[in-house]
């Protein structure tokens, strides 16, 4: 573990990521203020997931760290997604 190299993320990257996240937040607010029917929630959730992915990859260093963290997080998200799918199959088709 000693030879693991540490990638130093430049300050500018963090600033750009922050600006991106703020823009996405503004888009979410704007998109949910217009009438799109059921697509409003879908759009809001897609943007939220996008923001979540950016936070995980850049702020939480998944993009730069050892791959094992990325694999672990992916497995947890996959398990969570599976539970959502199963729950909704149950409620939609019972």
């Amino acid at each position, binding site marked *: *573990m*000693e030879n*693991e190299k*540490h990638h*130093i*993320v*430049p*300050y500018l990257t*963090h*600033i750009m*990521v*922050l600006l991106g*996240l*703020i823009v996405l*937040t503004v888009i*979410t*607010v704007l998109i*949910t*203020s217009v*009438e*799109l029917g059921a697509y*409003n*929630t879908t759009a*809001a*959730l897609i*943007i*939220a997931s996008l*923001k*979540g992915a950016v*936070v*995980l990859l*850049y*702020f*939480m*260093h998944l993009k730069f760290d*050892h791959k*094992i*963290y990325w694999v*672990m*997080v992916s497995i*947890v*998200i996959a398990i*969570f997604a599976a*539970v*959502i799918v199963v*729950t*909704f199959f149950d*409620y939609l088709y019972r």
Partner: protein
Amino acid sequence: METMTHQHHADAHRDDTASKIGMWLFIFTEILLFGGLFIVYSVYRHMNPVAFHLAHEELSITMGFINTIILLVSSATVAISISAIQKNDRKLTLLMLGITLLLALTFLVNKYFEWGGKFEHGMYPGSELMKNLSNGDMLFFSLYFFMTGLHGVHIIVGMVLLGITLYKVKTGAVNSGRYALLENSGLYWHLVDLIWIFLFPLFYLIH
């Protein structure tokens, strides 16, 4: 560099990677805790779409938006503080951690006014007003108070962690050769931000 290597070997039990993996494992339990609540929310919203839509109009989008921006900025300042300590810039690390704590406090103050406004109108868990709400409204507000409340507790825990880290950066216990504590507190703080990223559209932006 030499002194760093020396420090390194002085502590045989140190394993930064292991401590980071441990932090991630803990974060997974947090993701599943809030994930479970999000599923509960989704199912009840699916069963009470109209009530959830009407009830959400009681919440201020502006307040939610401001708090979202506050958390995003605070997440960035923590990320910058990690880059700063890696570059051995202690001053910037301390400044960024200080700003983060200040932003966290602002978030809580906003939350205080937000919840306080609800309480003044007699809307709080267990109140007469809430007992007389329809099923759907009651579910919305119960979930709102529980989930944002639990998130608020996480903000406080995050502030304690970041406060301890700030102190240790000050004393030099956390430095450019040894900053696992800062990284792990940072991960926790980003988690708090991550949860809010989903709480905001689901409670404040229902269309």
